[in-house]
């Protein structure tokens, strides 16, 4: 009737693993031909994606770096406009027409995807890295059966025949918890939760190494959200999948991810294991953001406010972009961009409160009265 967590499930707290712990049903991966042996699964290095808007340039992603290892779940958190969705779209190169990756590298198995042409990237998109878009469950083709839509990428990308593709699509639907028979339904006949599962099945169609979920549970009820997150967790174990979860909802990341990347105004504020960042946040933005989240298990009515609003990314402030709103801002903050500093517990912070060589002890910032 109900499912508790399966025995031996991967925990979200604790250090990131280089290879997944449980054996499960993972298929051994065949790496793409150009893969560099020994390279990490995904390495994003100083990514910059800008939008052209009339005569202005919006610096939506302005120097984001991170790494994803096989079997890991990384959460990218931030409020709207921080650049997290743009980062995700940059990884799969599905940016809107007026956006361009202007700098940095996106290295999948050491292969720089950012440098590839639009046609060359097709070899990797969906086959190595796929994405479940925000609100995708409402973007299903209303006049096509669900199974056919899941089969479509299999036919197009893998060149498999329709019968075999449909069979595999049925397998995928079962994998995500949709009974095979329901595959012949049309999208409107399915509930929101089931449509989201179908989208996940579609993202898995070509057996990618990485699945990016952009706000995968935002429009869903709490219970359905729990089901979908549980599903993602089990798929991760079973298929050895790596996940990048993009969301504004920190609690979803706390539940599901190994590591978290906190983004603000196009840059990374803090990054590290979920257990560390969420219990001992360092960056003032992380602290304020966490304090602004209602927490069922914590003290009531203790909510913090972040005054002001995010900067206009056409003319971002010099130095640290959070400085104008930061209660702990110092003079240097509005002049010099804070460098990334790594600490022993594998947390990375970009804040002048934590310069290179400092202890890395979190400095609490004042709540807004």
């Amino acid at each position, binding site marked *: *009737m*109900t*499912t*508790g*967590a*399966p*025995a031996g*499930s991967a*925990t*979200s*707290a604790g250090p990131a693993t280089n290879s997944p712990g449980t054996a499960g049903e993972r298929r051994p991966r065949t790496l793409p031909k150009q893969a560099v042996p020994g390279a990490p699964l995904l390495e994003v290095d100083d990514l910059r994606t800008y939008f052209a808007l009339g005569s202005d340039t919006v610096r939506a992603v302005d120097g984001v770096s991170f790494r994803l290892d096989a079997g890991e779940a990384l959460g990218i958190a931030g*409020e*709207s406009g921080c650049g997290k969705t743009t980062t995700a779209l940059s990884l799969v190169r599905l940016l809107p027409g007026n956006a361009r990756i202007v700098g940095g590298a996106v290295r999948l198995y050491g292969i720089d995807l950012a440098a590839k042409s639009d046609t060359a990237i097709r070899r990797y998109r969906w086959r190595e890295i796929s994405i479940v878009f925000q609100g995708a469950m409402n973007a299903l083709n209303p006049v096509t059966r669900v199974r056919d839509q899941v089969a479509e990428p299999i036919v197009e990308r893998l060149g498999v025949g329709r019968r075999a593709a449909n069979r595999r699509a049925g397998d995928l639907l079962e994998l995500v*918890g949709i*009974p095979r028979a329901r595959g012949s339904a049309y999208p409107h006949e399915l509930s*929101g*939760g*089931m449509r989201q599962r179908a989208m996940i099945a579609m993202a898995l169609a070509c057996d990618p190494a990485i699945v990016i979920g952009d706000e995968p549970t935002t429009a869903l*009820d*709490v*219970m*359905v*959200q*729990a*089901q979908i*997150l549980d599903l993602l967790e*089990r798929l991760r174990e079973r298929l050895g999948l790596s996940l990048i979860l993009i969301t504004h*909802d*920190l*609690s*979803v990341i*706390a*539940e599901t991810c190994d590591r978290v990347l906190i983004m603000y105004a196009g840059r990374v504020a803090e990054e590290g294991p*979920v*257990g560390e960042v*969420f*219990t001992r946040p360092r960056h003032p933005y992380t*602290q304020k*953001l*966490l*304090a*602004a*989240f*209602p*927490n*069922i*298990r*914590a*003290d*009531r*009515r*203790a*909510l*913090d*406010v*972040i005054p002001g609003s995010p900067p206009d990314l056409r003319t971002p402030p010099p130095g640290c972009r959070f400085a104008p709103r930061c209660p702990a801002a110092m003079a240097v903050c509005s002049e010099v961009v804070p460098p990334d500093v790594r600490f022993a517990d594998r947390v990375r912070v970009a804040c002048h409160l934590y310069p290179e060589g400092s202890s890395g002890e979190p400095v*609490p*910032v*004042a*709540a807004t009265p």
Partner: protein
Amino acid sequence: MTATPPVTVPTTPPATDELIRLEGLEVHFPVRRALVDLLPGRRRGVVRAVDGIDLAIRRGEVLALVGESGSGKTTTGRVVVKLTAPTGGRVIFEGRDVTTLRDREALRDYRRRVQVIFQDPYETLNPKQSIGDFVAEPLDVNRLATSRSDRRERVLAALDAAGLRPAEDFARRYPHELSGGQRQRVVIAGALVMDPELVVADEPVSMLDVSIRTELLRLMLDLRAARGLTYLFITHDLALAWVLADRIAVMYLGRIMEIGPAERVIGDPHNPYTRALVSVSPTTTPPTPGERATRTILVGETPDAAHIPSGCRFHPRCPLAFERCRSDEPPLFDVGHGQQAACWLAEGGRALPVVAAASGDARDA
């Protein structure tokens, strides 16, 4: 977490007199008729969005109505603000039956005292209407302003109370010039301008960014303290209810499953549905493996309100269901400390048994 003590918002102890009471409230919608329904023996379907709820809101309290989609919480809110007419039951406001108000004066009086804040700040404002006109509209429609200057003053006062300063500046603007948080403040100002007593807030912050939400929630609580407002706060987010509410009522498929003080409903739920919801509500504290094991992830989704299960409507998905649950619908049983739960297991005020975590992989079918 931060070392400095977090800012706590002052709470007002709920007053004891009742402002509004719903008795046996029902809202049933007929399912569209198809030709097939004319065949003999074919019963016409009914969507029982609200299927018999008893709810009393005390003056000055914040009552959170919590539920997932299909629970009937939004429809209940709409009945209270008279956007939807009930098909059964009564609405008692300050002791008077206001279920159907035929008298225009009485209806106008009711509307003056019961206002609404909707979910979508981008939709609640007419793009063609200036902010000032939007806030003044209740005064205009009900001819409440005594003069132009009176109208202006009241509009500016409402905008100021909602935190939009300088008020004169905002009054002149149009919705597209404002951010989501500002628009929602305008909506709040529009709800305040007639000095209401009860405000129904339907997911007022769910479309706003996290950091803006807190501002708006604080504003709502401050207004409650300053003006003695009463809130019916409708939300799917248990954590928001936790932060804001004095009492929480949990709805499922048109009925109240549990109701009581917020600390008790969340800390010690007596209905399995409530307990499951609380257990899966994610928090920013990463769960321990022990905590993960006690999550009760229900199978399937809420059935649609045209096909409500027999007996206790939750029984098909309930981990603790037994024979009686399939045949008889439980009433709300008192379990002490002002808390009530609609569950046969709660009869006599008993606590729910602890469920052992499922061993192995109980994959949802």
